[in-house]
């Protein structure tokens, strides 16, 4: 009997607290798969954000650290500078990364901090109950944009992958999504590449993942999945915005 697929070893056998169909669950599984594949469980250190994924350490069987809301890349910097041989990633939501943590992500990226950022862009604050995020698309209603996001007073959604790609020491910046099995496979590839980027000391890498939040998108899980491709990509085009293998950056 040969096994075609089984739960990755770096994923703890515990039922997650995520809602049915939540992208966080998929992202966790993919990270565990990548850690297994690269065989780096013993030297990977993850940063859990404040957000729905706050107890990511309940699910990933690696050393992990909790960071104050938004300071995740700064905490990751502290860990990486202390242990340059370890593989350090920060896992962040759009509130964590693109609102309160704007300064920290920009400066970690600008320094070319040799870490990997996994950015779960679900365009909403999940953990606190569905408030508007910096990435919430125009006109979308949330609990704090009850009349729909108004670009006149609240601006347009922030495009993180593009913004960071403009910084010279960023080695890899990519946007992928969770909208179909193929797309999820692409997410996995992007994560693999980002970790490899770090292991080869290329500098800062970020994988922005358009990720469904069925609960606050008020869609059933399958609709939410499809919504990533249909609506989210209108605002957040997929793509590789920076790639050291192509630009030769930081070689």
């Amino acid at each position, binding site marked *: *009997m*040969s*096994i*075609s*697929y*089984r*739960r*990755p070893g770096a*994923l703890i056998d515990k*039922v*997650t607290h*995520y*809602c*049915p*169909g*939540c*992208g*966080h*669950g*998929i992202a966790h*599984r993919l990270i565990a798969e990548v850690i297994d594949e690269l065989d780096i469980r013993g030297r990977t250190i993850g940063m859990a954000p404040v957000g729905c994924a706050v107890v990511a350490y309940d699910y990933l069987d690696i050393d992990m650290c909790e960071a104050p809301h938004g300071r995740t890349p700064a905490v990751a910097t502290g860990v990486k500078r202390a242990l340059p041989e370890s593989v350090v990633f920060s896992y962040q939501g759009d509130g964590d990364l693109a609102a309160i943590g704007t300064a920290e992500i920009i400066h970690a990226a600008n320094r070319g901090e040799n870490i990997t950022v996994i950015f779960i862009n679900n365009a909403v604050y999940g953990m606190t109950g569905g408030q508007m995020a910096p990435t919430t698309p125009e006109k979308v209603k949330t609990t704090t944009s009850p009349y729909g996001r108004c670009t006149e007073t609240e601006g347009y959604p922030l495009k993180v992958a593009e913004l960071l790609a403009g910084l010279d020491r960023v080695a890899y910046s990519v946007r992928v999504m*969770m909208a*179909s*099995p193929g797309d*999820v*496979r692409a997410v996995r590839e992007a994560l693999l590449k980002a970790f490899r980027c770090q292991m080869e000391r290329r500098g800062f890498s970020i994988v922005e993942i358009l990720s469904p939040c*069925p609960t606050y998108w008020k869609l*059933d*899980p*399958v609709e939410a*999945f499809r919504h990533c491709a249909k609506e989210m990509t209108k605002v957040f085009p997929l793509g590789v915005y920076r790639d050291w293998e192509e630009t030769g950056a930081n070689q």
Partner: protein
Amino acid sequence: MLRIVIDRKHCKGCGLCVAFCPKGALCMATSISPRGVNPAEVREEAACVGCLNCTVVCPDAAIEICELEAAD
């Protein structure tokens, strides 16, 4: 021969696996699992072609698939 195992403890009944199975090998149960949802279940194991779409989209890593060697 493929064996599909859906873990009713992990499955939250999101339906993604069912939606993305190209062969209709899976379906949602009408019964209630201990966590109070209608979980996914195998509709027709024989239809499965091992594409792994279901495992790839499952947010709860609730599906495992193994190949049973033909008893030759």
